[in-house]
């Protein structure tokens, strides 16, 4: 479990370039949750998630992992990084090895695991992200954009993290590549049942899979709750440049026009259900 207590962060503090990026963010992230973080560009999403595995040190506040302050003297942040796996935005830019397998092995090898274990984890991870075995010995630089990204995700997955954090994993991909990535993420969530934190600037396509949505604005948490709770504020979300799923607008519009739906819907199935029930009455 991760717990953030009033975490603040300022880039280059004490200079003319000082840039406050996070302001007293408090969050509780229990095990096994599927969380979406949304927010406009520059709202502090990337900065926030880099705190989760101790890559940046907060300029204020404390972060606890399983009850321990991760910036304690004797807390191993190197180990934390294997427990909280962080996939950066455009992770394919970090590939460097000569073959796909070798690149995925980088993480587990850094953990000083036995050879067999390393190989096992590597193949498992590659299989989960849907990279077929004829690509194992290919150069990562010869793959397509979507494949590269899945290899990079496998590189983090092979460390068997308890929490997997992905920063805008679908950015810059074509619809097919995007679907493959999202499928891989859902498969990870299903197979491993770990905590997954998905960062995105739009949440329409994942709204129905996540348990919880956190909305960031100007370095603070603006909303935090189930998709339904969050998207109920679709008007306010629009003001900060975020969109709710289309069905939310549709059901909201119906309610405005006097159709007695009990609430706004966040998924198509839910909306269909509501409307059906309304029609029967």
């Amino acid at each position: 479990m991760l717990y953030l207590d009033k975490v603040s962060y300022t880039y280059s503090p004490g200079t003319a370039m000082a840039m406050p990026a996070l302001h007293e963010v408090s969050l509780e992230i229990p095990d096994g949750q599927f969380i979406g973080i949304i927010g406009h560009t520059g709202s502090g999403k990337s900065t926030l998630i880099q705190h989760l595995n101790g890559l940046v040190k907060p300029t204020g506040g404390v972060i606890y992992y399983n009850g321990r302050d991760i910036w304690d003297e004797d807390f191993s942040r190197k180990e934390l990084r294997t427990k909280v796996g962080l996939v950066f935005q455009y992770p394919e830019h970090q590939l460097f090895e000569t073959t796909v397998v070798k690149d995925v092995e980088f993480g587990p090898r850094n953990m000083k695991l036995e050879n067999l274990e390393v190989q096992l984890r590597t193949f498992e991870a590659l299989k989960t992200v849907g990279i077929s075995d004829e690509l194992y010995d290919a150069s990562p630089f010869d793959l397509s954009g979507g494949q590269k990204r899945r290899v990079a995700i496998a590189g983090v997955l092979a460390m068997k993290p308890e929490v997997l954090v992905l920063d805008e994993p679908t950015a810059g991909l074509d619809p097919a590549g995007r679907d493959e990535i999202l499928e891989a993420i859902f498969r990870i969530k299903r197979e491993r049942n770990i905590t997954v934190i998905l960062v995105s600037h739009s949440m329409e396509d994942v709204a129905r899979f996540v348990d919880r949505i956190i909305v960031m604005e100007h370095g603070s948490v603006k909303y935090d709750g189930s998709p339904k709770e969050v998207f109920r504020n679709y008007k306010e979300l629009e003001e900060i440049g975020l969109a709710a799923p289309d069905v939310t607008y549709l059901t909201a519009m119906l309610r405005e026009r006097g159709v007695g739906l009990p609430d706004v819907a966040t998924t198509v199935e839910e909306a269909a259900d509501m409307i059906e029930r309304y029609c029967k009455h």
Partner: protein
Amino acid sequence: MLRDITIGQYYPSGSVLHRLDPRVKLFWTLLYIVSMFVFNTFLGYVVAGVTLIVLIKISRVPFKFMVKGLKAVWMLLIFTLVLNLFMTSGEVIWQWKFLKLTREGIRTAVFMGLRLFFLIIGSSLMTLTTTPNQLTDGLETGLRGLKKIKVPVHELAMMMSIALRFIPILLEETDKIMKAQAARGADFDEGKFKDRVKALVPIFVPLFVSAFRRANDLAMAMEARCYRGDVNRTRMNPLKYKQIDRIAYLLQFVYLAVLICADKLLAPLLTKVLPML
């Protein structure tokens, strides 16, 4: 940690110096550097030093910030000091085996150190108050005359501005890649020398790949906008001297005049009164 490198960095504090025409600042810097070599009396150092302090105050760049960027040149400074301390012949005041400390040695070392210090701070003051773009603009416009003798001024300036523009981008990229590899358990500051060199591979390969990708993208983008050197090229904001720039030019000559007067006229007079200087 990479962000600690401040040489050549721009510090936006919006002072008068920031608003000066880059040509003025380039000329100022050149003149200041040259002036370092025309004086050799105590009074000369006072004039040069005071001028620098005033300029730093006007620039509103914290002195601490400037000095922080000097880490890389500290070694050079100390090396010069030591070399001058022990290699100058003259009146010996302390000796240990072959090491001789002379009165002249101390004098040269202190003055040489000061001179270097002025030089470095003086030129970083220019880069701190001038964006890379302004700087190359200034160079290109200032050296326009050289085109007549077939010096590719525009091309050189364009290359320089691209290089300067890419420094922060590559630093940022390095920072990001290091973080990304650290997230995969990479360790950069532990282990034996061999391990540390090996740990650089996961940084440098992605860095080179990204540098080539960016260069390629940029070339493509320039081509797409029909870039073909400065043939018929016009500027959106051509450099134009303002009143304040003329004043700044004038002040440069005032500085030079004061320096030479102090050094050549006042100092000999003063030495007569206070011989130890």
